[in-house]
């Protein structure tokens, strides 16, 4: 049912279940409050939100967060009487928690300079609003903290002041605390302000990456409070489209397909493996993707290049070949790093006044227009230094190195050891096969090259195919490559898959093994040797049989058959014996 009310002279028609505070918010009238939170039941603990109401001819001062509107109610949020009550409440809170910042702001707005009451602890921040306790109980369902003692001795604590086993470490208490009284230690250790990848605790419901397709959030069951305690569900509560479903289950679909394109990508080289570069413990040493994120217009700084202290760097070093072309890590060239490093240098030149140093071994600008881009960078004034960086350190030797990162490098063109102080270092981290590439290779029965990227059928003539028919490769799972190359290979893989589908038939391996029924004794020595499970023992016939469609024709079972009942088409024992004989004729 709708009711008509007046707030500060403005008329409004609202649902009768609306609180006075919510009604005021609809009119953009600000009623200060500390303990109000939309997802928790109002509790009227801080009593800062008091207003004067006139209803049925009677006036009263009430808390607006928990009192509902009534037909014909007239509300004054800043009447003299309301303000007097609010000021008194604020002054009392100020005596209790003088260090609480939001409280100080409200006091300032109300013109209160200092409280008339006695301050017990000038550092106290807790206003005893109970948001944390209620969040822990009602939202999280953990019940790890509660109020202890009474009156002016009251405080919030886990039982007996000991770390509570009921606590699940969700940090909801800190999140709800209006005065930053509750803090938690950053358990991730790495203090990086600008990394999307390490921006600190992530919410349990989030969009995985900014380029995610589809662009929808998912719930991380590992960290979601609901999956720990069965409570919370705040995300579902606030979602206006009712799109959040905590009961949704993972579905595993069995799809029958004719071909598979593997585009499982790569893993960024973990720069912390190279300890002298300080990645992971030096704040302003970033890897390639972190800088990419930092400089992105939709990134955490809106695309501004900033150091951990928030200042723009005066000098930036870009280190090439991190984890690549290095026999301690990966001997191969990761191929894309030279060009993305040049891009970074260009962006730095464009967006900042920083001096950009580029430490390279060889500049590999292999693609169309790439060499030209390199020349553009030379013209832009990027300082290219040929040599591998040996160390990145914080330890200064001169006053001007103080507080900066010092890059130690042998300049092989000058033939000199140099120390170059910068404010930020970008490590051009290389590309490695994805974490589970071995499992993938096994699943699809394909091979890997020595650098453990997937092996193509032929380096020149069949670069998108594999030795397993119907399995194709695209992108960095096959070898490090840039976007144009990836797109090219992906197109080829898709075309080959389509060609296969269009043909509608499939060529079986002609070189398979065959077991002669008349000779097989059913000894079963061969059965488990087959990695493709093509051999089965037929109990009824007492012999082993090979499934022609599964057999790939390696001949391992043929070599192992103790009675030579199994032979390999085109590679029969007699044929190979004849080859040996022919080969060794004098």
């Amino acid at each position, binding site marked *: 049912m709708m009711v008509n009310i007046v707030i500060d002279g403005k008329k409004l028609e609202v649902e009768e279940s609306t609180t006075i505070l919510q009604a005021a918010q609809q009119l953009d009238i600000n009623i200060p409050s500390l303990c109000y939170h939309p997802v928790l039941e109002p509790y009227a603990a801080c009593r800062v939100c008091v207003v004067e109401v006139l209803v049925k001819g009677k006036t009263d001062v009430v808390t607006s967060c928990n009192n509902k509107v009534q037909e014909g109610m007239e509300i004054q949020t800043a009447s003299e009487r309301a303000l007097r009550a609010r000021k008194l409440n604020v002054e009392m809170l100020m005596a209790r928690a003088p260090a609480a910042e939001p409280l100080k702001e409200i006091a300032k707005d109300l013109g209160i300079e200092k409280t008339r009451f006695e301050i017990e602890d000038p550092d106290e921040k807790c206003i005893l609003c109970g948001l944390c306790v209620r969040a822990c109980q009602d939202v999280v369902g953990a019940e790890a903290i509660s109020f202890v003692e009474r009156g002016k001795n009251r405080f919030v604590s886990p039982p007996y002041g000991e770390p509570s086993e009921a606590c699940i470490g969700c940090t909801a208490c800190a999140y709800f605390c209006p005065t930053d009284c509750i803090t938690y230690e950053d358990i991730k250790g790495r203090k990086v302000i600008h990394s999307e990848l390490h921006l600190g605790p992530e919410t349990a419901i989030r969009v995985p990456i900014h380029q995610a397709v589809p662009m929808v959030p998912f719930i991380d069951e590992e960290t979601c409070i609901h999956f720990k305690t069965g409570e919370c569900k705040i995300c579902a509560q606030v979602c206006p489209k009712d799109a959040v479903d905590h009961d949704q289950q993972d579905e595993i679909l069995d799809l029958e397909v004719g071909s598979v394109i593997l585009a499982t990508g790569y893993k960024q080289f973990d720069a912390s493996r190279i300890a002298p570069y300080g990645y992971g413990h030096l704040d302003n040493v970033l890897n390639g993707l972190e800088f990419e994120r930092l400089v992105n217009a939709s990134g955490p700084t809106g695309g501004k290049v900033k150091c951990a202290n928030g200042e723009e760097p005066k000098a930036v070093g870009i280190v090439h070949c991190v984890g690549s072309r290095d026999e301690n890590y990966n001997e191969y060239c990761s191929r894309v790093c030279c060009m993305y490093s040049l891009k970074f240098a260009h962006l730095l030149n464009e967006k900042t006044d920083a001096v950009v140093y580029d430490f390279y071994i060889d500049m590999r600008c292999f693609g169309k227009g790439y060499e030209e881009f390199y020349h553009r960078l030379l013209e832009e004034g990027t300082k290219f230094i040929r040599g591998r960086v040996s160390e990145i350190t914080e330890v200064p030797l001169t006053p001007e190195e103080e507080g900066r990162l010092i890059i130690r490098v042998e300049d092989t063109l000058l033939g000199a050891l140099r120390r170059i102080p910068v404010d930020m270092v970008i490590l051009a981290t290389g590309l490695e096969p994805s974490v589970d590439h*071995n499992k993938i290779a*096994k699943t699809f*029965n394909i*091979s*890997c*090259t*020595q650098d453990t990227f997937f*092996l193509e059928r032929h380096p020149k003539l069949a670069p998108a195919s594999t*030795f397993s028919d119907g399995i194709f490769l695209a992108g960095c799972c096959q070898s490090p490559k840039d976007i144009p190359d990836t797109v090219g290979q992906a197109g080829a893989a898709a075309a080959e898959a389509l060609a296969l589908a269009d043909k509608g038939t499939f060529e079986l391996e002609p*070189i398979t093994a065959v077991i002669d029924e008349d000779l097989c004794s059913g000894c079963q020595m061969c059965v488990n*040797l087959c*990695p*493709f499970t093509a051999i089965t023992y037929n109990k009824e016939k007492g012999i082993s049989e090979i499934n022609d469609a599964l057999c*790939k*024709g*390696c*001949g*391992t079972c*043929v*070599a*192992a058959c103790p009675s030579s009942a199994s032979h*390999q088409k085109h*590679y029969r*024992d007699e044929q*190979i*014996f004849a*080859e*040996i*004989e022919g*080969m*060794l004729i*004098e």
Partner: protein
Amino acid sequence: MNNESFEPKIVGFLCNWCSYTGADLAGTARMVYAPNVRIIRVMCSGRVDPQFVLKAFSEGADGVLISGCHPGDCHYQEGNYKTLRRYKLLNKVLEQFGIEEDRFRLEWVSAAEGAKFQHICNEFTDQVRELGPLNLNGGNQ
């Protein structure tokens, strides 16, 4: 015959996917290596029946090389592991037949390792040359 002028005959069983391709690469890259290794291509080193090795020795080979994909890289997943197992056992048996361990070799050569193949051929040929002819058919009757 002194060992300097002796040219050993070596039979090499190479798997189709890695080692044979590797040997091919050595060829296309115009790497020169000892011509003593006579290559027989099999689909997988796992196809190499110990009978083949014995046959080669009995037909006059002074050395036998089996070469397959690197462990973990087998085109057929694990044929090369079966080869490794048999190789170890066969080596022990060959020793009882008086055929030195150094005449029978198992190597992993990938399709990309033309240079490694070249190196193995040269090294193995020198090694067998050093041992001298196998001369299986000695003794009376």
